[in-house]
């Protein structure tokens, strides 16, 4: 009897699989080395495709009230977020990594 399932995953399926495993890798990395609690109140990882269809992994962060209180503290937050993004690039190869700001926990 022959199976109706494709022998190999189709390209779209492959992309989805890759993206999902990249997301898990980034989530694991963040769980092992969580973002600074004094600057980031909560975070989540989101995988999506940009307008060209390229995979993007976003670390959605909600800053703490303290981090946004003064210009000096905001500067510290932005410096930290840049560093976080730069470090994230070495994790889960094959995706674009960005950090997006949120005012609350994003809808999934």
């Amino acid at each position, binding site marked *: 009897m022959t199976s109706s399932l494709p022998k190999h995953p189709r390209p779209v399926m492959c992309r989805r699989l890759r993206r999902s495993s990249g997301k898990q890798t980034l989530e694991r990395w963040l769980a092992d080395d969580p973002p600074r609690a004094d600057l980031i109140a909560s975070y989540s990882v989101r995988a999506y495709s*940009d*307008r*060209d269809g*390229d995979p*993007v992994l*976003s670390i959605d962060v909600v*800053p703490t009230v303290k981090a*946004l209180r003064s210009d000096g503290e*905001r*500067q510290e937050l*932005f410096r930290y*977020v*840049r560093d976080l*993004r*730069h470090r994230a*690039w070495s994790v889960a190869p094959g995706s*674009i990594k*960005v*950090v*997006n*700001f*949120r*005012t*609350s926990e*994003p809808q999934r």
Partner: protein
Amino acid sequence: MSPAFDEFLAVASALLQAADNQTDPATAEAFYRRAISTAYYALFHRITEDVTGLVVGHLEAHRQTVFRRSIAHPAFKGLRKDIADQHQQAEQAGLRERQSILVQLKALCDHLLQLQESRESADYSPHLDAPSITAEEALRSSAVALQTWAALPESSEALFAQSLLWHLALNQRFKAS
């Protein structure tokens, strides 16, 4: 005459200030969205103009414009990966000076790609969360990247231009095939 790209960041800053002064949230968001977009273009135009000067600076102005306009936004994604690969090779070969140059170029690409993503959301997404924080970060990010770019020695800019050209050629080849 080429547009005054250096003024873009000042425009973005004025837009951010105008947004902060708005009482109507919808109007404020419109200003924040424009500020994010302008912050990205401040960096994009500065880099593309300088790369154009390096590569085809000897040609007539209209030919330079044709070249500059051929530098498409997606080319920077491949460029980031290429620079990361070059960095890894330099690390393995123990080429410290090259490594430090490539670290700066990688950071520059990170700024570009983040700003590209923020601009995409600002220009096309119907819902933009945290517009004021995103706009503020976009401006700071663009300013930091412009400083990094301005401080780079010409040899580093040439390395950046060379990698970018490779990706433009590659994209062209895929389009043609």
